[in-house]
């Protein structure tokens, strides 16, 4: 290529660039630029019309100034003028300026679009490509509106030049990514798939990207691409290194296209057609075989291109997760890379093995590399590689190697980079709990964590160790002894003081027999840390002190003296002062019996998902951890998901709003109800689940027989449609009036957390006459009995006129469900039997836990949930005013997080969350696209479980 033509067109520009480069200081540069800007401005404003060449030169200078990082606020009009020049080079600079510096100035967009339209219609391939590049570079909504229907035509037209096809495909892809709603699907889509067969490799390369994106959106419509992609891939893989001429890159045939094809195949499950599948498996085997062949070149480009294909093939193998043979081979290959001299390969091998570890077929094979990975954690010089090693250790951990891995991670923590400490702490805490066989090991591990990296131990971690110690009496003595010893250290972390304070307050008595840890010694030890601690820790210690008075009466005078001192009782902090005053009074007034009752040992905590796991999930978004958890559910499943329950079913009761250690206020319970005073005891009634249907199934009709058997107007069995209506009212809210007629009003208040919930029903007698034999009964239609567990307590059979009684329902969601439970209320009013059946407002979305995630994660997860059955979609007419605030409130009420700045179209709403049931957790993503003009909505749900997608979609669609 001749070197003469390079940029010689604009000497003025070259002079200007040299000037800038010669500037000795930033000030000089700015001065030179301002001079130039003034010059250009005067030229543009001047009377003399500028010719195309000068315009081009000045526009180019402006562009250069902008790229240096300065703001440019003029020249756009001149650039737009260049677009309509018939000189290629002027047009080209105009387009470049627009591509780099576009702003959505509507006036200009119209002009730009006009110029583009002319060029697209010009049938001059060079002009067409330029304009397509511009659209692809800008990709704005206005451009999508103008061209989204034209470009598909260009793409599939028979007479379009190859280069134009390539640009059109990728241009369309860009528009589809930013404004999918504006790209019309149609006849062209089927023809696009056939571009996979195109003779021109460049056309195929561009088209695969477009097809992959379209497939993710609607896999069913593009199914045919699987076999086409497989045969194309097979032809490439089996070709000799010279067959593809210029598409061979360092002896590797078409590496970019191969990688793209392998990516496309990852949008689908393994091919059903045996022949296609066979051919694909053959391809994958060939790729694995080639990795073992001696390299055809020593150049790194050769090995990179070859390994790029290999890693993509391994991704596909992992995606299928169905070919044990290939999975193990992949694992062995990665094992070789673990010790490769190229850092890049070691990094990628560690990363890729993480996903292999979660497959049941390759988990064991991955585990054989444990020593290498531990070594990598210790010796890699690059922190990003060490991080991958830590991730892999976490992923390959199971009961057999937990102790080794946890201890390696702990020792790594001592020197770990600050940026990854918190994550390592969480991982260690989770592994220690999950695979703890003896809980003293668990306690040691967590205390070590606090010792080594106290600053990175979050609340969740130390809350959890306390939960576990409280729930397991076999470890309490050991825990007390260990924290006592840990507190001996002259400088110990405040988190250690918290854990120590709490545990000694509960279980200090277990070690008090030893004179070396007598009550007073324990107290003095704790109190020696008191002054160095923050307010919240001090508050905790004050509670420990009052517990000590109860546990060890001999400490009472000492502790009372401490509480009485000015620094406590007149502390400027309200919380501390209040505690000091109250505890002092309590200890002086209350009898030992009362004190013992008030300060009774903490009851076991309800079993639930580890809060730490929830935190890690929050860091990584749902799915990431989920996959790991689910992937490893081996058949013999001896893993503890949390701690095993310590007592019978009575302990596994919900306490929705109580925070872990009761540091904040306890839940306030409605006081109108009889017996509400001892609700905390009563709510956890020992009524066995099966007998929930309450006693009096005596004389009368029950549901099916309706009101027929009873006197006129007595039955309030709602027709089912109306009952659904009622239920819909409560999908997005938890409180309100559930039912009202002339006699009775039923109010409902409920709260849900994780897979548990509690519902308060308030039955108000609106008359002045007593209701007799008042009997509410819960029934489960269909399979609900096995999906939802409800516990209720019978209410008093007499409801006085004007009175209100309360009933508490404890709810546990075992698995996802569709039908709502029913409540049947029977009572006698003035001699007639009343019979009312209602749906209880318990729907699957109540067990939603909102999840925040960045846009990137959302789309990645969205794409992962690509199977047709994972998606549920409804397009429906708005039945309410389309108000965005109302919509947002509804979505939040529905339970999902509302994610801002995720959807490129700000009118759309996207949300994410996890449906928590006892058996599984289901990650859910949702997207609601309003169309104000048509007064329609499109609602799309993607979850990992078909029935959940369907049900959520159904419930939510009725809300707008």
């Amino acid at each position, binding site marked *: 290529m001749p070197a003469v033509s390079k940029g010689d067109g604009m000497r003025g520009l070259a002079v200007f*660039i040299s000037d800038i480069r010669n500037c000795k200081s930033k000030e000089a540069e700015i001065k030179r630029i301002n001079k130039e800007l003034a010059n250009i401005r005067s030229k543009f404003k001047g009377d003399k019309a500028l010719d195309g060449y000068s315009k081009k030169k000045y526009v180019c200078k402006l562009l250069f100034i902008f790229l240096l990082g300065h703001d440019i606020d003029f020249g756009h009009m001149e650039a737009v003028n260049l677009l309509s020049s018939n000189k290629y080079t002027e047009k080209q600079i105009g387009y470049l300026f627009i591509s780099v510096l576009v702003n959505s100035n509507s006036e200009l967009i119209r002009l730009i679009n006009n110029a583009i339209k002319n060029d697209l219609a010009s049938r001059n391939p060079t002009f067409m490509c330029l304009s397509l590049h511009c659209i692809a570079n800008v990709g704005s909504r206005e451009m999508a509106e103008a061209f989204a229907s034209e470009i598909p035509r260009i793409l599939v037209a028979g007479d379009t030049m190859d280069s134009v096809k390539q640009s059109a495909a990728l241009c369309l892809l*860009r528009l589809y990514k930013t404004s999918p709603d504006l790209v019309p699907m149609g006849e062209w889509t089927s023809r696009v798939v056939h571009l996979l067969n195109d003779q021109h490799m460049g056309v195929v390369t561009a088209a695969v990207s477009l097809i992959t994106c379209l497939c993710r959106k609607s896999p069913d419509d593009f199914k045919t691409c699987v076999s086409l992609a497989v045969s194309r891939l097979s032809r490439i893989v089996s070709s000799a290194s010279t067959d593809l001429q*210029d598409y061979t890159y360092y002896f590797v045939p078409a*590496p*970019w296209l191969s990688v*793209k094809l392998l990516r496309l195949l990852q949008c689908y499950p393994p091919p059903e057609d045996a022949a296609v599948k066979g051919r694909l498996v053959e391809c994958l085997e060939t790729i694995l075989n080639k990795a073992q062949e001696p390299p055809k070149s020593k150049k790194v480009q050769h090995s990179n291109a070859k390994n790029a294909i290999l*890693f993509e093939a391994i991704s596909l193998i992992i995606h299928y997760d169905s070919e044990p043979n290939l999975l193990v081979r992949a694992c062995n290959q990665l094992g070789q890379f673990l010790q490769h001299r190229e850092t*890049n390969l070691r*990094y*990628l091998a560690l990363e890729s093995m993480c996903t292999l570890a979660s497959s049941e077929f390759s988990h064991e094979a991955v585990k054989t590399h444990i020593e290498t990975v531990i070594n990598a954690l210790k010796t890699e010089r690059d922190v990003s590689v060490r991080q991958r090693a830590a991730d892999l250790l976490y992923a390959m951990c199971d009961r057999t190697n937990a102790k080794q891995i946890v201890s390696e991670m702990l020792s790594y923590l001592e020197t770990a980079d600050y940026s990854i400490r918190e994550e390592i702490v969480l991982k260690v805490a989770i592994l220690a709990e999950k695979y703890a066989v003896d809980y003293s090991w668990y306690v040691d591990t967590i205390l070590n964590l606090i010792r080594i990296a106290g600053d990175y131990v979050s609340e969740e971690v130390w809350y959890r160790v306390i939960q576990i110690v409280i729930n397991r009496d076999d470890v309490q003595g050991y825990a007390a002894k260990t924290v006592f010893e840990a507190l001996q250290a002259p400088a110990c972390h405040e988190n250690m003081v918290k854990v120590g304070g709490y545990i000694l307050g509960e279980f200090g008595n277990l070690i008090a027999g030893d004179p070396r840890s007598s009550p007073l010694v324990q107290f003095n030890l704790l109190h020696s840390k008191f002054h160095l601690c923050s307010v919240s820790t001090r508050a905790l210690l004050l509670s420990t002190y009052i517990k000590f008075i109860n546990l060890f009466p001999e400490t009472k005078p000492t502790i009372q003296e401490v509480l009485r001192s000015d620094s406590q009782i007149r502390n400027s902090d309200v919380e501390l002062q209040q505690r000091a005053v109250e505890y002092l009074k309590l200890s002086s007034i209350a009898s030992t019996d009362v004190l013992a009752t008030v300060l009774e040992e903490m009851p076991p905590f309800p079993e639930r998902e580890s809060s730490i796991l929830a935190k890690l999930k929050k860091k990584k978004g749902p799915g990431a951890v989920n996959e790991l958890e689910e992937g490893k559910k081996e058949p013999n499943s001896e893993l503890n998901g949390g701690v095993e329950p310590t007592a019978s079913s009575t302990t596994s009761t919900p306490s929705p709003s109580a925070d872990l250690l009761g540091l904040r206020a306890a839940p306030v319970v409605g006081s109108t109800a009889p017996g509400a005073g001892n609700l905390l005891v009563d709510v956890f009634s020992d009524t066995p689940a099966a007998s929930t249907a309450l006693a009096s199934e005596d004389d009368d009709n029950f549901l099916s027989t309706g009101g027929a058997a009873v006197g006129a107007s007595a039955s309030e069995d709602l027709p089912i449609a109306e009952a659904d209506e009622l239920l819909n009212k409560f999908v997005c809210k938890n409180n309100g009036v559930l039912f009202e007629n002339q006699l009775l009003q039923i109010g409902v208040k409920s709260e849900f957390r994780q897979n548990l919930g509690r519902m308060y029903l308030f039955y108000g007698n609106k008359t002045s006459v007593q209701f007799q034999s008042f009997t509410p009964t819960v029934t489960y239609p269909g399979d609900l009995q096995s999906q939802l567990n409800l516990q209720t307590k019978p209410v008093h059979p007499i409801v006085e006129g004007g009175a209100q009684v309360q009933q508490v329902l404890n709810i546990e969601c075992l698995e996802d469900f569709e039908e709502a439970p029913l409540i049947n209320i029977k009572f006698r009013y003035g001699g007639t039997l009343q019979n009312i059946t209602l749906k209880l407002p318990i729907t699957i979305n109540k067990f939603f836990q909102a999840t925040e995630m960045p846009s990137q994660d959302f789309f990645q997860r969205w794409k992962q949930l690509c199977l047709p059955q994972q998606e549920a979609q409804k397009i429906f007419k708005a039945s309410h005013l389309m108000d965005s605030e109302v919509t947002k409130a509804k979505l939040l009420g529905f339970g999902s997080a509302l994610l801002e700045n995720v959807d490129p179209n700000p009118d759309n709403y996207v949300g994410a969350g996890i449906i928590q049931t006892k058996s599984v957790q289901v990650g859910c993503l949702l997207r609601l696209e309003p169309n104000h003009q048509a007064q329609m909505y499109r609602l799309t749900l993607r979850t990992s479980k078909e029935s959940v997608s369907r049900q959520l979609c159904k419930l939510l669609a009725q809300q707008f």
Partner: protein
Amino acid sequence: MQFMLLFSRQGKLRLQKWYVPLSDKEKKKITRELVQTVLARKPKMCSFLEWRDLKIIYKRYASLYFCCAIEDQDNELITLEIIHRYVELLDKYFGSVCELDIIFNFEKAYFILDEFLLGGEVQETSKKNVLKAIEQADLLQEEAETPRSVLEEIGLT
């Protein structure tokens, strides 16, 4: 691919190409952050790093760093070769390319990139085809300009 940046060892940005819509302010912030991060890395380190929720792939050629941001599921090694192929294209076009070529002919660097990558995806991997497109454009340029540039440069217009 979400964006590509070229910058010098001194941290001067030489070329920027964004495939996702971002405000100028964000672009500047990202650039500053990444230039700093990449320049701080030692020579033998791995060419990939996690940054926010993206993967950064970078490689140094003489005084210039080429740095791409790709999404989680994108292929790291093939991105590294995207960089290399782009360098080859520049090299072939300019005849052993150096930083100065890119400074003085930045518009050409953009044109070549647009032929190779479009909307963040590889459009054409054949070196011949990419350069053919650019060459054609250069021919059009010469035809258009030879007669007038002489006059222009001596200031007669």
